[in-house]
């Protein structure tokens, strides 16, 4: 019985040693790298099988011209609105007092 237990113990130890053995030419410090990456696998593999969109904006002459035109229109509208909102009472009086004002409506 004793010899059986002893041989079983030897077998277990041999298995342990075998599992810790390095492959030929394997770096003995591989566990440093393993420890670094084994806790990050979920985050590092989440982008697999996907396309990362890291696009840039290319200059397009026609698009730039159109954007400039839209900006100009918006700026003019803003200026006109600001002029209406900031009109003083004096200006109102001046407008109403002009004789042609009544003929317009």
């Amino acid at each position, binding site marked *: 019985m004793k010899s059986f237990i002893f041989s079983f113990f030897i077998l277990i130890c041999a298995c342990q040693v075998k599992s810790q053995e390095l492959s030929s030419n394997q770096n003995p410090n591989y566990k440093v790298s393993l420890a670094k990456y084994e806790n990050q696998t979920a985050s590092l593999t989440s982008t*697999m*099988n996907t396309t*990362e*969109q890291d*696009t840039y904006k290319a200059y397009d002459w*026609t698009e730039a011209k159109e954007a400039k035109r839209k900006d100009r229109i918006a700026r003019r509208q803003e200026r006109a609105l600001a002029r209406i909102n900031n009109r003083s009472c004096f200006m109102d009086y001046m407008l109403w007092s002009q004789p042609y004002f009544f003929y317009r409506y």
Partner: protein
Amino acid sequence: MKRIYLFAVILISVFTFSCSHQVTRIEPTATPDINGSWNNTDSRLTAEEMIKQCLGEAWLANYNDSKGKKPVVIVGMVANKSHEHIEAETFIKDLERTFIKTAKVGLVQSGKKREELRAEKADQQSNASVSSMKKFGLENGADFILQGSINSIVDAYKRKKSVTYQINLELTNIETNEIVWIGEKKISKLVKN
């Protein structure tokens, strides 16, 4: 009076037809170029070229000779660094389909689909019958990872624009980090507005 009626009919019909929305079905292989951006034809041409290069180059024969089995590939990330939104899945899927169809290259699932598979396996551990339950730790490990990038160069002046897309796919040995294959497809277009 008749002329007025005729004119009215023509006017109404022109108005009706000009406002109607029209859809014409076409073959997927015959996608016309509309505004010059990336389209189905570009994706198809890329897939065809990549399939030809990937299955026709030395890495496959070398691996078969040294290991005596077909290589197993996992699909990694493709970085789109161009000026347009391009989904690489359209041509990567064509490549994957060819891997499976030709049975020259094995393929394992990756990304979110792999997570779903593992979740299902975990669910089976407590819900499926013992005989049908799938075990953990028996997945096929990939030998190579497929990664890629999409780049573009744009040159535009007034109404003319030239665009060049460069699509690269690379296969890297996971154990040794050795790049065994780089596929390349360049597409150039001249657009006049």
